[in-house]
């Protein structure tokens, strides 16, 4: 590089850095432990929602940062197709997408930076799975207490399957890169059914279609066997927490709505603590009153901080502040606010990127896959939590997560029908 070239590069880099919040020099070391007594020391490295959880007992043990490589096929598709991807002026419509990461060049000075990050999140490499099948998982919901008193479990849920099938951006399982035929023009389908416990909800399920046309709202169906009725949920109702627990469908994984449903703002780039290499599989829950939270290793991660304001009328929340890992585009946690701007809920992911669920598991992947042994959603205003073990420790040897298995794991279009959901309830 010539001197003039070097100078131009340096000036460009300086210009870019002007818009990036200065990365925090994390003054934490691997092995350090944080709890309510010393959480102030890491207040800048966690979200207000996570801080609330630590103040209520959630333990944080600091671990080393570990790089996560995205799948080779995803990186190759990014190189091949990203050049042709375009975004509409309002950032809501993406065209030219085939597979891979839509916008690999993220410039904080770009007026559309927040939308591009959210579209990258939507088609993230860490979940660029053609299909996924989560089996045999359970969830508890109840009140958070103090002292040694454990979370008062009000309801215990046991679920058979959470499955997803992508219809575009496919890289691993034929047909690729699109699932044809796609007469409904869907981007993907997801189903959560049947619920096995509690007995009064046995057979309940939900099914959802997301369409390639972002102007078309999701179709979401809820089957209630006791009423023998299929109810249709609006997109705004996706933010409602159902059956006395705290999680809403749109909060799954930190955010499971469409990028087109919110107005997004880029709030900066920071170095924060998140769980990306959980050591415990199945999950290890913390002790005493902190047992609403998992007890695992948090590592320093560079994250994008994005604010989302819903465009949908009657959406339950006024804002989501989402913390997106820069390397994988996985959400490490997401804070949710009410209309007055008061902290309402937090979703925390307990990721464990690895090639096998556990040593000796029957399935080994070529790439590190986004195993998620636990999630927690806390309603801070009600001091109430829902925690899920993915999979449930009740099933020793269960891998829980099955990625890109297609028909081998039963993840076929036939499963994603209302008829199949009703049949499974019997």
């Amino acid at each position, binding site marked *: 590089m010539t001197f003039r070239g070097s100078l131009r590069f340096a000036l460009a880099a300086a210009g870019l850095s*002007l*818009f*990036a*919040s*200065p990365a*925090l020099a994390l003054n934490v070391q691997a092995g350090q432990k944080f709890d309510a007594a010393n*959480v*102030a*020391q890491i*207040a*800048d490295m966690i*979200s*207000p929602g996570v*801080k*609330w959880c630590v*103040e209520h007992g959630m333990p944080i043990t600091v671990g080393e940062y570990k790089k996560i490589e995205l799948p080779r096929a995803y990186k190759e598709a990014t190189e091949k197709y990203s050049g042709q991807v375009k975004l509409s002026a309002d950032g809501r419509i993406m065209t030219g997408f085939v597979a891979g990461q839509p916008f690999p060049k993220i410039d*904080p000075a770009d007026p559309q*930076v*927040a939308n591009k990050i959210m579209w990258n999140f939507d088609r993230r490499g860490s979940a660029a799975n053609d299909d996924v099948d989560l089996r045999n998982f359970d969830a508890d919901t109840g009140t958070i207490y103090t002292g040694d008193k454990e979370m008062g479990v009000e309801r215990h849920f046991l679920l058979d399957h959470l499955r997803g099938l992508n219809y575009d951006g496919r890289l691993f399982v034929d047909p690729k890169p699109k699932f044809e035929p796609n007469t409904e023009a869907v981007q993907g389908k997801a189903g959560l059914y049947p619920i096995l416990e509690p007995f009064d909800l046995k057979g309940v399920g939900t099914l959802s279609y997301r369409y390639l046309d972002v102007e078309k709202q999701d179709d979401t169906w809820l089957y209630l066997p006791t009423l023998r009725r299929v109810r249709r949920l609006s997109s705004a109702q996706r933010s409602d927490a159902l059956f006395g627990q705290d999680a809403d469908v749109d909060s799954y994984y930190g955010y499971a709505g469409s990028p087109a449903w919110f107005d997004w*703002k*880029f*709030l*900066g780039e920071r170095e924060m603590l998140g769980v990306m290499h959980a050591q415990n599989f199945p999950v290890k829950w913390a002790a005493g009153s902190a047992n609403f939270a998992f007890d695992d290793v948090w590592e320093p991660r560079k994250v994008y*901080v994005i*604010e989302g304001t819903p465009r949908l009328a009657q959406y339950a929340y*006024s*804002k989501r*502040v989402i913390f997106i890992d820069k390397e994988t585009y996985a959400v490490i946690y997401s*804070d949710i*606010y*009410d*209309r*007055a*701007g*008061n*902290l*309402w809920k937090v979703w925390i992911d307990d990721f464990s990127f690895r090639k096998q669920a556990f040593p000796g598991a029957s399935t080994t992947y070529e790439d590190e896959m986004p195993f998620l042994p636990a999630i927690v959603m806390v309603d*801070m*205003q009600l*001091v109430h939590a829902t925690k899920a073990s993915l999979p449930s420790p009740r099933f020793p040897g269960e891998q829980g997560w099955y990625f890109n298995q297609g028909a081998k794991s039963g993840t076929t279009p036939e499963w994603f029908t209302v008829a199949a959901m009703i049949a499974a309830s019997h």
Partner: protein
Amino acid sequence: MSWSRAALHWIVAAALALAFFASGRSRGPEASRPGPAATPGPAGGARAGGEADPGTRPAPGADGPRAAASPAQASAHATAGGPGTDELPSGVTRIRISRGDLAVAWRREADATWKVEAPAGKSIPPGLLAAFAEQLDAVREGERLEAPGPDADFGLDRPSLRIEWSGAGDRRGTILVGGRTPTGTAWYGRVGSDGAVRIVGSNLVYYADLVLGAAR
């Protein structure tokens, strides 16, 4: 019209006028909701968790909006009944936030983007500046506690954050943020020289943390 009928009309009109003035006097200068039953935590306890610099009173600066530069001045404006004092934020065009010695000021440009005025040369993501400005509107949604008790119970004797804003039509105001509420989901605040305590959302305070952190 007979004399007696005319007298009856005058009596009815007088009664209506009395009723009108009586209702006008009973209406306060600002509609207010009764405060929640929530009680503040022990003095100082509301600031648990090491919120930055609660003990330092923000230094007034010359680069902020045209609003009162100190609580005393804000109070003087209110006493004098100056235009636009004690306003809830609305149509904001300039903002200055400060905590301890650190202050950041920014203004809205003609193209609706936000630009940092101070500290000079600091660039903060425009989306963050805009998000803070929009979140200021939510202050009006916060609960209002009437005659709540000593300032120290709410951390307002030593505010942890000072927000000054100004807007079109000579509107301006100051919001002082004290300690965190016992639930940990919001903060106590005071708008202008209003004696009431308002609940200020955590969202606003978190964005202030991000802005001040980016300017450090």
